[in-house]
Protein backbone atom coordinates (compact mmCIF):
# COMPACT_ATOMS: atom_id res chain seq x y z
CA UNK A 1 0.00 0.00 0.00
CA UNK A 2 1.43 3.38 -1.00
CA UNK A 3 1.44 5.85 1.84
CA UNK A 4 1.34 9.64 1.88
CA UNK A 5 3.63 10.21 4.86
CA UNK A 6 6.24 7.85 6.25
CA UNK A 7 5.91 7.99 10.01
CA UNK A 8 6.40 6.20 13.29
CA UNK A 9 2.80 6.01 14.47
CA UNK A 10 3.98 5.88 18.09
CA UNK A 11 5.89 9.16 17.91
CA UNK A 12 4.47 11.93 20.02
CA UNK A 13 5.63 15.37 21.12
CA UNK A 14 4.54 17.84 23.78
CA UNK A 15 1.34 18.61 21.89
CA UNK A 16 0.15 15.01 22.24
CA UNK A 17 -0.10 14.67 18.47
CA UNK A 18 1.77 12.12 16.40
CA UNK A 19 4.48 13.69 14.24
CA UNK A 20 6.73 13.12 11.27
CA UNK A 21 8.66 15.27 8.81
CA UNK A 22 7.40 16.73 5.56
CA UNK A 23 10.52 15.40 3.83
CA UNK A 24 9.11 11.92 4.41
CA UNK A 25 6.10 12.63 2.19
CA UNK A 26 6.42 11.50 -1.48
CA UNK A 27 4.13 14.40 -2.44
CA UNK A 28 4.49 17.20 0.11
CA UNK A 29 1.85 19.31 -1.64
CA UNK A 30 -0.97 17.20 -0.19
CA UNK A 31 0.27 17.53 3.39
CA UNK A 32 -1.76 20.53 4.52
CA UNK A 33 -3.81 21.14 7.68
CA UNK A 34 -7.12 19.30 7.51
CA UNK A 35 -6.02 16.83 4.82
CA UNK A 36 -6.81 13.17 5.28
CA UNK A 37 -3.74 11.09 4.57
CA UNK A 38 -2.42 7.57 4.90
CA UNK A 39 0.54 7.58 7.29
CA UNK A 40 2.82 4.85 8.56
CA UNK A 41 5.41 2.57 7.09
CA UNK A 42 5.51 0.57 3.90
CA UNK A 43 7.35 -2.33 2.44
CA UNK A 44 5.69 -5.20 4.26
CA UNK A 45 2.04 -6.17 4.85
CA UNK A 46 2.70 -6.11 8.58
CA UNK A 47 3.87 -2.51 8.57
CA UNK A 48 1.60 -0.20 10.57
CA UNK A 49 -0.53 2.14 8.48
CA UNK A 50 -3.41 4.40 9.54
CA UNK A 51 -5.77 6.99 8.14
CA UNK A 52 -4.80 10.32 9.70
CA UNK A 53 -5.75 13.98 9.65
CA UNK A 54 -3.05 16.59 9.32
CA UNK A 55 -3.31 19.08 12.19
CA UNK A 56 -0.47 21.53 11.65
CA UNK A 57 3.00 22.08 10.28
CA UNK A 58 5.88 23.80 12.09
CA UNK A 59 9.44 24.45 11.03
CA UNK A 60 12.00 23.22 13.58
CA UNK A 61 15.74 23.14 12.95
CA UNK A 62 15.23 23.53 9.19
CA UNK A 63 12.83 20.59 9.09
CA UNK A 64 9.10 20.92 8.57
CA UNK A 65 7.35 18.97 11.31
CA UNK A 66 3.95 17.52 10.40
CA UNK A 67 1.62 16.91 13.35
CA UNK A 68 -1.35 14.65 12.75
CA UNK A 69 -3.97 12.64 14.55
CA UNK A 70 -4.66 8.98 13.92
CA UNK A 71 -8.29 8.39 12.98
CA UNK A 72 -10.25 5.26 13.84
CA UNK A 73 -10.78 2.50 11.32
CA UNK A 74 -8.85 1.28 8.31
CA UNK A 75 -8.75 2.81 4.84
CA UNK A 76 -11.13 0.06 3.69
CA UNK A 77 -13.75 1.45 6.10
CA UNK A 78 -13.50 4.86 4.45
CA UNK A 79 -13.74 3.29 1.01
CA UNK A 80 -17.00 1.60 2.03
CA UNK A 81 -18.38 4.95 3.17
CA UNK A 82 -17.41 6.67 -0.07
CA UNK A 83 -18.89 3.85 -2.14
CA UNK A 84 -22.15 3.76 -0.16
CA UNK A 85 -22.75 7.45 -0.73
CA UNK A 86 -21.65 7.43 -4.37
CA UNK A 87 -19.12 10.14 -3.76
CA UNK A 88 -17.23 11.16 -6.88
CA UNK A 89 -13.55 11.74 -6.20
Amino acid at each position, binding site marked *: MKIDLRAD*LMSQDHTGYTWSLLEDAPDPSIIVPGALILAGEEGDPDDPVAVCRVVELEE*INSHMVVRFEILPGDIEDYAVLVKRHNVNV
Partner: protein
Amino acid sequence: MSGRVEQSGRLRNESPPDNAIVVVRGGPNTVDKIGRHAAKTAKLWTYEGAPVEGISVFLALGDSGDHSLDSVLASMSTYRVVHLATVGQLRAHGFDLLATGRRPHFTLRSAGGGTLRITELLDVLGERHLNPHFELRRKS
Protein backbone atom coordinates in the same frame (compact mmCIF):
# COMPACT_ATOMS: atom_id res chain seq x y z
CA MET B 1 13.88 29.55 11.79
CA SER B 2 14.66 27.75 15.02
CA GLY B 3 17.15 25.13 16.16
CA ARG B 4 16.45 21.88 17.94
CA VAL B 5 13.89 22.10 20.73
CA GLU B 6 15.31 21.58 24.24
CA GLN B 7 13.13 19.04 26.03
CA SER B 8 14.25 19.51 29.64
CA GLY B 9 11.58 22.12 30.29
CA ARG B 10 8.91 20.02 28.63
CA LEU B 11 9.34 16.71 30.43
CA ARG B 12 6.72 15.47 32.84
CA ASN B 13 7.98 15.17 36.40
CA GLU B 14 7.73 11.40 36.36
CA SER B 15 10.13 8.53 36.87
CA PRO B 16 8.45 5.23 36.03
CA PRO B 17 8.82 2.31 38.47
CA ASP B 18 11.09 -0.59 37.59
CA ASN B 19 8.16 -2.98 37.27
CA ALA B 20 6.30 -0.93 34.65
CA ILE B 21 6.10 -2.65 31.27
CA VAL B 22 7.58 -0.88 28.25
CA VAL B 23 5.90 -1.58 24.92
CA VAL B 24 8.14 -1.16 21.88
CA ARG B 25 7.06 -1.41 18.26
CA GLY B 26 7.82 -4.66 16.48
CA GLY B 27 7.46 -5.73 12.89
CA PRO B 28 9.63 -6.14 9.82
CA ASN B 29 13.04 -4.46 9.62
CA THR B 30 12.79 -3.32 13.20
CA VAL B 31 16.48 -2.41 13.45
CA ASP B 32 16.34 -0.17 10.40
CA LYS B 33 13.11 1.47 11.42
CA ILE B 34 14.15 2.09 15.02
CA GLY B 35 17.37 3.62 13.72
CA ARG B 36 15.52 5.85 11.31
CA HIS B 37 13.09 7.08 13.95
CA ALA B 38 15.86 7.68 16.46
CA ALA B 39 17.73 9.76 13.89
CA LYS B 40 14.59 11.72 13.14
CA THR B 41 14.11 12.58 16.81
CA ALA B 42 17.73 13.70 17.02
CA LYS B 43 17.11 16.19 14.21
CA LEU B 44 14.53 18.01 16.31
CA TRP B 45 15.15 17.52 20.01
CA THR B 46 17.91 18.11 22.51
CA TYR B 47 18.04 17.15 26.16
CA GLU B 48 20.48 19.03 28.36
CA GLY B 49 22.00 20.42 25.19
CA ALA B 50 22.67 17.16 23.33
CA PRO B 51 20.57 15.71 20.49
CA VAL B 52 18.09 13.08 21.64
CA GLU B 53 18.63 9.83 19.75
CA GLY B 54 15.62 7.94 21.02
CA ILE B 55 12.39 6.24 20.08
CA SER B 56 8.82 6.59 21.20
CA VAL B 57 7.46 3.94 23.54
CA PHE B 58 4.39 3.56 25.70
CA LEU B 59 4.42 2.28 29.25
CA ALA B 60 1.86 0.18 31.05
CA LEU B 61 1.73 2.06 34.32
CA GLY B 62 -1.22 0.38 36.00
CA ASP B 63 -3.21 -2.82 36.18
CA SER B 64 -6.40 -1.24 34.89
CA GLY B 65 -7.69 1.86 33.16
CA ASP B 66 -6.18 3.98 30.40
CA HIS B 67 -2.60 3.06 31.26
CA SER B 68 -3.00 -0.70 31.62
CA LEU B 69 -1.11 -3.00 29.27
CA ASP B 70 -4.36 -3.86 27.48
CA SER B 71 -5.15 -0.19 26.89
CA VAL B 72 -1.64 0.52 25.65
CA LEU B 73 -1.82 -2.41 23.23
CA ALA B 74 -5.23 -1.17 22.05
CA SER B 75 -3.74 2.24 21.31
CA MET B 76 -1.11 0.44 19.20
CA SER B 77 -3.61 -1.63 17.22
CA THR B 78 -1.86 -0.77 13.94
CA TYR B 79 1.11 -2.87 15.13
CA ARG B 80 0.78 -6.63 14.63
CA VAL B 81 3.76 -7.43 16.83
CA VAL B 82 5.37 -5.67 19.77
CA HIS B 83 8.23 -6.22 22.18
CA LEU B 84 7.77 -6.04 25.94
CA ALA B 85 10.28 -5.39 28.71
CA THR B 86 10.21 -3.90 32.17
CA VAL B 87 11.68 -0.51 32.96
CA GLY B 88 14.05 -2.25 35.37
CA GLN B 89 15.39 -4.56 32.64
CA LEU B 90 16.09 -1.61 30.38
CA ARG B 91 17.76 0.41 33.12
CA ALA B 92 19.94 -2.57 34.05
CA HIS B 93 21.21 -2.67 30.47
CA GLY B 94 22.01 1.02 30.21
CA PHE B 95 18.87 2.57 28.82
CA ASP B 96 16.70 5.30 30.27
CA LEU B 97 13.35 6.92 29.62
CA LEU B 98 12.47 10.58 29.21
CA ALA B 99 8.88 11.48 30.12
CA THR B 100 8.05 13.18 26.81
CA GLY B 101 4.66 13.80 25.23
CA ARG B 102 1.54 12.81 27.09
CA ARG B 103 1.37 10.06 29.68
CA PRO B 104 2.03 7.11 29.11
CA HIS B 105 4.40 8.14 26.27
CA PHE B 106 8.15 8.14 26.90
CA THR B 107 11.28 8.44 24.80
CA LEU B 108 13.65 5.50 25.18
CA ARG B 109 17.36 6.26 24.74
CA SER B 110 20.77 5.08 25.85
CA ALA B 111 21.33 6.20 29.45
CA GLY B 112 22.92 9.62 29.48
CA GLY B 113 22.30 10.14 25.77
CA GLY B 114 24.46 9.42 22.75
CA THR B 115 23.92 6.77 20.11
CA LEU B 116 20.97 4.47 20.69
CA ARG B 117 22.40 0.94 21.01
CA ILE B 118 19.71 -0.74 18.91
CA THR B 119 21.15 -4.25 18.72
CA GLU B 120 21.59 -4.35 22.48
CA LEU B 121 18.12 -2.93 22.93
CA LEU B 122 16.59 -5.70 20.84
CA ASP B 123 18.55 -8.27 22.85
CA VAL B 124 16.95 -6.93 26.01
CA LEU B 125 13.52 -6.81 24.42
CA GLY B 126 13.70 -10.45 23.37
CA GLU B 127 10.96 -12.22 21.51
CA ARG B 128 8.11 -10.60 19.66
CA HIS B 129 4.57 -10.78 20.97
CA LEU B 130 1.42 -10.69 18.87
CA ASN B 131 -0.75 -7.69 19.65
CA PRO B 132 -4.29 -9.10 20.16
CA HIS B 133 -5.79 -5.72 19.29
CA PHE B 134 -4.32 -5.86 15.78
CA GLU B 135 -6.72 -8.60 14.73
CA LEU B 136 -9.59 -7.03 16.65
CA ARG B 137 -9.09 -3.83 14.67
CA ARG B 138 -9.19 -5.76 11.42
CA LYS B 139 -12.40 -7.54 12.43
CA SER B 140 -14.18 -4.42 13.69
